[in-house]
């Protein structure tokens, strides 16, 4: 299991950290529950409600569009970290990022033209 000790240690440490944080906030924090504060998510859709009810499709549309840009950021970050290696590829590296962003841009334009982010 070479190399996996580190992962096990990492997992153990993160578990300890989580438990520690929960414990400390339990010991130190004031406890004044309100119904709204007791829900799982502070924002977004209510957790428990009748399944057959009207809901805002816009909310999910915005959610999906946000996801696209979230992922874009996540995928472009590693390029910054490896920029020196990438620069040796010359235009190839630029082209790769360009294609990636261009595809996303086309999707965004499509979404705008389809009035996905118009509010009424």
């Amino acid at each position: 299991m070479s190399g996996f000790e580190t992962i096990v240690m990492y997992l153990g440490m993160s578990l300890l950290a989580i438990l520690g944080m929960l414990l400390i906030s339990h010991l130190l924090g004031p406890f004044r529950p309100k119904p709204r504060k007791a829900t799982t998510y502070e924002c977004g859709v209510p957790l428990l409600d009748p399944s057959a009810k009207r809901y805002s499709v816009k909310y999910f549309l915005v959610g999906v569009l946000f996801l696209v840009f979230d992922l874009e950021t996540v995928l472009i970050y590693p390029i910054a970290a490896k920029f020196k290696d990438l620069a040796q590829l010359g235009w190839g590296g630029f082209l790769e990022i360009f294609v990636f962003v261009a595809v996303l841009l086309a999707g965004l334009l499509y979404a705008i033209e389809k009035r996905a982010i118009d509010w009424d």
Partner: protein
Amino acid sequence: MDLQYSFSLAKLWSICGAQVIMLLSGLVLLFVEIFYKGKSPERRLSTIGWLTTIAMALALGHVCNKEWNLDEVVFMGAFSMEKFSAFLVAVVLMAGIMASILSIGYLKNNKIYRTEYFLLLAFAVYGTIAFVQAVDLLMIFITLEIMSLGIYCLAAFLRDDRLSLEGSLKYFLIGSFGSAFLLFGIVLIYGFTGEINLTKISSVLARAPFQHPMVLVALAMIMVGLMFKISMVPFHMWAPDVYEGSPSVVTGFMATAVKAAAIGVFIKVMAVGFGPVLSLSGQPEFYANALLGALGAYWKPILWWISLLTMFFGNLIAVNQRNVKRMLAYSSIAHAGYMTLGILASNDMGRMGVLFYLFAYTIMNIGAFGVIYCLDGQERHAQTLEDYRGLGYKYPGLSFLISLFLVAMAGLPPTAGFIGKFYVFAAAIRSGYLLLAALGILTSVIGAYYYLRVVYMLYMKDPVREISIPGVSVSTAVILIAAALAVIYLGILPQGLTDVADAAQKTLSLVF
């Protein structure tokens, strides 16, 4: 970034040309879809449908126009294009072209004028091509998701129809479940070898003890992930509901292109990634050696049982179905079982047989679903066995075509289905799987019962209710007749295609 792979546009074009064409035309279609208003919804629908078809035809031209025996077949360690991939890409594009032409008529029949359909189809085809070409486990996963997302949306395209939505949701949930298996397998193999490229994995495995439990678990996980897509038996639960619920043409596409791609990747992963002993000994050994690799001892017994279960389960349950689409869903599970037999045989003839079978199966299955949509008129209007009673005299052309496709699927000569089954079973017998081949032939006899029952209903029963279908468009008729001719032609003169398939499977080793 690994700099040993040099980037060049020319290489990108020569190896991933089909993908580039599909991606670019998909992006162009996005804007055509927005800005092109058209004279009437029908005109708009058929224009965008034909544009999609032309894009796929261009991509097919790029694939077929080249002799794929270059020395360098791998692009940046991510995609490869040797004859094996080229063959599968051609099959996928052929399925895509047939599906998109049939879709025009299908959508008109159902009075659906939302043209997003063709965008989804184009991107699904793009994902499928990339999936077939990928030689990097991470790329395999990403492209699998691109392919699947397109298909999930297409499955739900009849959005006022409960069965369609139900099928799509089931496909999405179970597909994600299957992808999770695949991804977990990839993670384990990456943890063990530190590589995600198939050839590098095999060279690391050749140095390391490949019987390590982690490798075996990873192998099992990756196999399970792909088996979900192929719908082999313990992982087939989604198939009947999804195939019944989806629009008929989409069902045809996902029963053929997705299955062909998943089987191709399955063979590729098994032969290239998990063939450690072979990669040490080099290419000539690969040709001579009948086995896919030293890990064969671990996966072959499992695949033996899965193949048997898939063939029996698919064929036996199909007997009990009243809905023709659902029956074909179970039959497609059974066909996956026959193809598994060819993978299991893992000799030249077996792999060639699988490729031939995939080609023939694609033609006859999309053809059958094409006829089903024509007889249906509007989706779920007439697709049970009772509805098919006596149609043979009212609609002789369509009835003859579906009879031909079903006879071909049953594996009767002189059709392509017979030749495909013959090669697969012969390869299995040659590799010593005599019992399995015998049982397989037994199940295909069961299969003949329910295929021929449809023909019996068409010609020998009196109709119980009036079925009237709208006219069949010329393009649909041309596709169906071409498919029928191909099925017969390949049944009588299979030599051309078997030569191509044989050349294709021999080039698997070029990925190294």
